[in-house]
C-alpha cells in the first residue's frame, strides 16, 4: 500500500538516479535527519555521551564494513589504525598547535598510510593469513606508540597525551569550541553523515562494484580485468582512513589520548558490530553499532536492577558482559547470519505487502 515498486514511472534522468525514489522514503529520510539534529535538545549529557560513542563506532564500522563486508577481506586489528588516528590528532594539536580543520583529516591520512604500509605485505596472502597479519599489526602498533617517545613527546614513563581544548576554526568566523557533549555530538554527526554518504555512494561507482566482484569471486574478477591487489589495497586504505577518523573522534571524546582504549578488544567489538548488524551493508554497520553499544548499558541496568536479589552478578559484571557478548555474536552467526539489517528488511517487506501476505 505504501508501495514503491509497481512499475517504472520515472520521466527524467534526475528522478531515476535519485537516492530516494518514493516520496514517503524521502519523508522518512528527512525526518530521521531532523530527529538526529534535534536530539541534543531533548537528551541529557549521559545519553549524548552514549550517542557520541555510537557515532564513533558508526564511522569505524562503516570503514570496516567496506573492507570486510564489501571487499571480502578481513581485519582483526582495526583498532590499531584508530590508534594511529587518535595519536596523530593528539600529537599535532598538543605539540605543533595544528588546528582541528587540518588535524582531523590528517589523522585519517596518516592512518590510511599506516594501513597501506601494513596492507601491502598482508594483501599478498589470503584470508586467514591476512587476519593474523592484521592481528600482528595491532600489537606492533600498540607497542610502537608506547615506546616512540621521540614522536609522541612523552617522556619518562608518562602515558597520556593531554590535548588542548579542540575548537573548530573556520576562516572569517570566531572559533567554535568543541568541549561540550552537544558540540561534540554535532561534529560527530557531521562526520558520521559524511561517512555514510561516502560509503553508500562508493558502491554506486566503479570502485565499489570492483570490490564486490572481488569479494564474490576473485578469480572471475581477475579474469574480467580487475586488478585484485590494487583494489584490495584501496579498500584497506579507505577503511583505515575511516578508522583514523574514528580514532580521532575518540580522542576528542576523551580529551586525552593513551593507547588503552585502542586494544584488540575494540577491534573485536567493531568486527562484532558489523557481523551482528549485517555484513556488506552500510545500514548494517549502523544497526550493529547502535545495538552493541547499547547492549552493555542495558546489561548494566539489568544487573543493577537485580542487585538486591542476586548481588554476585554486580561483582562479576565485566565477565557477564563478555559472556553476553559471546552469546549474542554466536547467536547471530548461527541463527541470523545476515544480521539485524536482514531482520529489518524482513519487517519492512512484510509491511510493504500488508495487509496482503503475498
Amino acid at each position, binding site marked *: 500500500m505504501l508501495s514503491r515498486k509497481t512499475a517504472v514511472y520515472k520521466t527524467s534522468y534526475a528522478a531515476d538516479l535519485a537516492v530516494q525514489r518514493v516520496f514517503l522514503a524521502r519523508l522518512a529520510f528527512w525526518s530521521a535527519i531532523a530527529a538526529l539534529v534535534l536530539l541534543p535538545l531533548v537528551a541529557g549529557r549521559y545519553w549524548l555521551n552514549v550517542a557520541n560513542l555510537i557515532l564513533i563506532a558508526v564511522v569505524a564500522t562503516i570503514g570496516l564494513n567496506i573492507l570486510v563486508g564489501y571487499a571480502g577481506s578481513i581485519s582483526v586489528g582495526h583498532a590499531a589504525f584508530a590508534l594511529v588516528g587518535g595519536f596523530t590528532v593528539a600529537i599535532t594539536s598538543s605539540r605543533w598547535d595544528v588546528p582541528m580543520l587540518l588535524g582531523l583529516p590528517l589523522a585519517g591520512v596518516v592512518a590510511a598510510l599506516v594501513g597501506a604500509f601494513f596492507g601491502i605485505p598482508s594483501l599478498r596472502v589470503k584470508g586467514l593469513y591476512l*587476519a593474523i597479519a592484521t592481528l600482528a599489526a595491532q600489537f606492533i602498533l600498540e607497542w610502537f606508540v608506547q615506546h616512540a617517545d621521540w614522536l609522541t613527546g612523552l617522556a619518562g614513563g608518562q602515558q597520556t597525551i593531554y590535548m588542548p581544548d579542540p575548537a573548530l576554526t573556520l576562516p572569517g568566523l570566531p572559533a567554535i569550541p568543541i568541549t561540550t557533549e552537544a558540540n561534540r555530538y554535532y561534529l560527530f554527526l557531521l562526520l558520521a553523515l559524511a561517512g555514510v554518504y561516502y560509503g553508500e555512494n562508493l558502491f554506486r561507482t566503479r570502485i565499489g562494484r570492483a570490490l564486490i566482484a572481488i569479494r564474490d569471486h576473485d578469480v572471475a574478477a581477475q579474469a574480467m580485468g580487475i586488478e585484485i591487489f590494487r583494489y584490495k589495497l584501496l579498500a584497506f586504505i579507505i577503511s583505515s582512513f575511516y578508522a583514523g577518523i574514528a580514532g580521532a573522534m575518540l580522542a576528542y571524546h576523551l580529551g586525552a589520548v593513551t593507547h588503552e582504549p585502542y586494544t584488540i578488544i575494540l577491534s573485536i567489538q567493531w568486527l562484532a558490530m558489523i557481523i551482528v548488524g549485517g555484513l556488506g551493508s552500510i545500514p548494517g554497520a549502523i544497526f550493529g553499532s547502535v545495538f552493541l553499544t547499547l547492549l552493555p548499558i542495558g546489561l548494566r541496568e539489568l544487573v543493577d536492577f537485580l542487585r538486591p536479589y542476586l548481588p554476585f552478578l554486580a561483582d562479576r559484571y565485566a565477565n557477564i558482559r563478555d559472556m553476553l557478548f559471546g552469546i549474542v*555474536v554466536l547467536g547471530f552467526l548461527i541463527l541470523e547470519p545476515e544480521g539485524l539489517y536482514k531482520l529489518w528488511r524482513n519487517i519492512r517487506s512484510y509491511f510493504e505487502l500488508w495487509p496482503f501476505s503475498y
Partner: protein
Amino acid sequence: MERVLELVVQGSLVGALYALVALGFVLVYKASRVINFAQGELVMMGGYLGVVLTATYGLPWPAAFALTLAISALVGIIVERTVLRPLIGRPLVSIVMATIALATFIRGALPTIWGPSTMAFPPLFPREPVMILGAPVSQVYLAAFVFTILFIVVCGAFFKTRLGIAMQAVADNQRAAASVGISVRRVFALSWAIAGMVAAVGGIVWGILLGVDNFLALLGLRVFAVVILGGLDSVVGAIVGGVLVGILENLAGAYVDPLVGGGFRDTAPFIVLVLALMLRPYGLFGREEIERV
C-alpha cells in the same frame, strides 16, 4: 656468552610449553581448516578445571588430571557440534568471528563461575633449581618440559596411526576422504576433542607455573606467531616454532628491551610473524598451499 646459553636453555623450555599450546591450533587446523582463536581460552579452561579439581575438591592428581582431560574433550566436541557445524561453508570472517566470540564467552564464563583471583595448584615439586648446561632451572619447568615432550611425541605417533591418517585425509580433501569411507563428522569431533585435551594439558602445565587466571588466555595470542612460523599444519613446525619463539623472546627481552625501553619481549614474536608472512607464509614446515594474490 654463558648468559646467552642460559637464555637459550630457558627459552627452549618455555618454547616447548608454547609448542604444547600451538599443537592444539595445529590439530584443529589440520583436520578442519579452522583457526581456533579460542585455543587460549581452552587452555585457560583446562587450567581452571585442574586447579578446581585438585585445590578446591582435593582429588588426587591422577584422577583430577584424567577428569580434566575428559571434560575438556567433551567441551571440544560440544563446541564443534554447536558452533562450528552450523558454520560450515561460510566465509572466513564468520568462522573467525565465531571462534573469537566463543573465546570471549569462555573468558567471561570462567571467572564468573570461579572468581577473578588467581588460583594456585597445590605444590607438587621441590623448590631447589637444577643446573642444566650451567643455567639454573626450576624443577617445575623441567618437569613441565619433560611432560610436554612426552605429549608431543605421543601426538606425533598418533598421526601415524590409522585414525591419524584419517584425520590428515579429511584435512586434505573432505570429499575424497568421505568417498573412501572416512566419517568426516567423526574426524571433526575427534580433532576438536583432542585439541581440547591438548589445551587442557597446556593449561595445567602453565597453570602450575604461573597460576590460573586470565593471563593464560593471552598465551593463545602469542602462540599465533609460533604457529605461523612453524607452519599451520605441521606438528613438527609447532615444536620447532615454539622453541624458536621462546628463545627469541628471551634474547629480545635481554638484549633489545634495554635499548627500546621495555615491552619488546612481547612484541618480538609479532614482528617475526609479519616477517614470516612476508617471506615465507606457509612457515618452516607447512605445506606450500596458500594462495598469493
